[in-house]
């Protein structure tokens, strides 16, 4: 009986907090950059920190954090505002995304950055739309994200572009006529990029063998065997880094001799670590090549090395990923928009974003009428399995 009393009291206490909770103004409490005095503007960071895309999300967040470290304040309408980052983990999961997004909305974010992974971006999109908060996609490349929306922008290239780039690359460089495309079921990024690659590759007269795998699958040996049996000349696997590590490992142990191709997600030291010392041939398309801006590289490396958490989030070393660079640029785009809006009101920021132009580390950024970045070049990199670093291969664009 005593337990029952206790439990009911517990429930009552919880309910009362619920009621108390709604009296309070939503506090922007989550990240404790102590907003001592003065005005604060909140920028939401909507990124995965766990799950399949956790590694990539963390690297992207790192870029945003570094940018915030370099430029912690912004002048809006003549007043100095401290920029507070509110980082929320969307767990790489489409069903957690809306509630993570709602957390940012209730924290009163003026503008949101993210997310790594197209699926979560689409899943969270409507929550932001309803709240009227603009979002700047950092590396989400699926066309559906911005399509038909006026609040979603992005600073990266799109999958139709990326897919074509990679298809052209495989055809030009390897003379490939047969490609094996492995995508993950239910992952918009993976399915989308696979789809556009297939389209472009077939347009070039090639043949494509399409396969899919399920979430939670970690056995890729059968796929690799099939690719070999079918006589594919390139193996295209747009996927998360998590899958990449498994795939590379198994490809190496099964002696897959054809080149492994992937999109921007693979631009990560997870891939380099997995590939180091193994007999695999990996090419990725990405946004940035380390060395493109030595000053930036030096700065961020110093910062990463000085902060143990940051280093761990970057996968344990100071390789600069294209994702980090994009995160960095996205932060400045957001600041530009805030400045141009002259207000922290999300609606004003949204309006201002259309005309923002910014020259970032990854190149010139401006938005077209859909809200997508005007970009026409991607970098192709090759994983050097001896040094464990990326080798620059080509800057590729699509001949229209």
């Amino acid at each position, binding site marked *: 009986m005593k337990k029952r009393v206790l*439990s009911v009291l517990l429930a009552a206490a919880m309910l009362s907090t*619920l009621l108390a909770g709604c009296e309070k103004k*939503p506090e922007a409490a989550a990240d404790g950059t102590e907003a001592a005095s003065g005005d604060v503007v909140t920028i939401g960071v909507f990124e995965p920190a766990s799950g399949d895309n956790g590694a990539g999300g963390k690297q992207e967040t790192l870029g945003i954090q570094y940018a915030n470290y370099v430029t912690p304040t912004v002048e809006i309408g003549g007043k100095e505002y401290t920029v507070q980052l509110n980082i929320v983990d969307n767990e790489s999961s489409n069903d957690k995304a809306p509630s993570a997004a709602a957390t940012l909305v209730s924290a009163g974010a003026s503008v949101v950055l993210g997310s790594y992974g197209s699926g979560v971006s689409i899943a969270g999109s*409507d929550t932001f739309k*309803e*709240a009227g908060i603009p979002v700047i996609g950092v590396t989400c490349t699926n066309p559906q994200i911005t399509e038909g929306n006026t609040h979603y922008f992005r600073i990266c290239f799109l999958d139709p572009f990326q897919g074509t780039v990679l298809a052209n690359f495989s055809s030009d460089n390897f003379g490939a006529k047969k490609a094996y495309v492995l995508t993950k079921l*239910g992952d918009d990024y993976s399915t989308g990029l696979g789809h556009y690659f297939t389209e472009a590759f077939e347009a070039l007269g090639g043949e494509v063998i399409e396969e899919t795998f*399920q979430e939670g699958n970690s056995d890729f040996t059968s796929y690799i065997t099939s690719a070999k049996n079918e006589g594919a000349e390139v193996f295209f696997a747009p996927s998360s880094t998590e899958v990449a590590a498994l795939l590379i490992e198994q490809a190496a142990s099964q002696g897959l001799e054809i080149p492994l191709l992937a999109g921007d997600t693979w631009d990560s030291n997870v891939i380099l670590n997995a590939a180091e010392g193994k007999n695999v041939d990996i090419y990725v398309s990405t946004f940035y090549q380390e060395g493109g801006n030595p000053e930036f590289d030096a700065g961020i490396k110093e910062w990463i090395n000085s902060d143990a958490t940051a280093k761990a989030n970057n996968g344990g070393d100071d390789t600069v990923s294209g994702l980090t660079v994009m995160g960095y640029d996205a932060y400045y785009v957001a600041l530009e928009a805030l400045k141009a809006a002259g207000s922290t009101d999300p609606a004003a920021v949204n309006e201002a974003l259309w005309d923002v132009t910014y020259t970032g580390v990854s190149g010139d950024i401006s938005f077209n009428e859909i809200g997508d970045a005007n970009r026409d070049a991607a970098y192709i990199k090759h994983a050097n399995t001896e040094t464990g670093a990326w080798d620059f291969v080509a800057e590729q664009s699509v001949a229209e």
Partner: protein
Amino acid sequence: MKKQTKIIWNVGLIAALLLLLFILEQVVPSSSMLFMVLKKGAIYALVAVSMNLLNGFTGLFSLGQAGFMLLGAYTYAILTIPVESRASVYQYFDGGIVQFAIPVPLALIAGGVVAAVFAFLIGLPVLRLKSDYLAIATLGFAEIIRAVFQWDKLGPLTNGSNLLRNFPTFQSVLYPFIVAGICIGLIVLLINSTYGRAFKAIRDDEIAAEAMGINLAHHKQLAFVISSFFAGVSGGLLAMYQTTIQASMFKSAMTYEILLIVVIGGIGSVTGSCIGSFLFIACSEWWLRFLDNSNLYIGDFHLSFMRPGFRKVVFSVIIMAIVLFYRKGLMGDREFSIEGARRFFQKHFKKKQAVEGGSSHE
């Protein structure tokens, strides 16, 4: 007379609740997490009650709830996406094969019906199995349904493994409350009818129930189909809440969550499932979020153990504690009622009565 006052009380309570929600919506900024919790809580309350109907009232240990929600959600989405946005949603499948849209309430019911039809077909072979075997078989069916919906050959209908979106959603917190409320009301009516009594008889003792002339196969099938119908409706609501859906969301982890809600609320208690649902959602989505904050200080002391993920650890510890120490959940198999609450307070806050108030059940 007594029954009438009871009804009046209950109707009054519901009206007061809806009014409260309405006022809250006017007063509290709509961006508050409160509404998110209320919306999702109402939806989960419905699916938890539907699961309770099976596990708690009929004694069938089924773990297929996520699969039936998937059916409901997909049916709802497929039937309501406006024709003009189908081309962009079904971008890989030339706009899909369904080229019409039906009104939202109809689509919700259709979602329930589709789930119920599948439940009927699945139930025919599966319901003969006992306890754990039934659990694992229904879990298996949910997984199979999930795989089938991701199959790209069905893409023109289901959009393959890709997101479905752009279907009508709700803004007001009243919407899920009213829909879920009506559904839960129906379930309560069923439970208190002669059929509900038969279900409870099956739960208590299958052999005796059968000897009393209760057709086990028929009644189990009935409970299974009805439970799945409401799971389907809640799936439709969930789709509305999430604004996008995808087969990969409906994993067995979702069923486990619902099961935990049922257990926390009390197996065999409808009000318990409702309360459990709101508490569960609030804890997992809202109240414990501060635990994920990595920059929390007490004075100068940095609480370094608090970092993303800590919230979930705390949450699962709380759940384990409830499972181990409050085995019967918040409500046991009792129901919350005005009378019960009054008696409860009388018993515990008036010492005089507390002495004599020892009867073993109310």
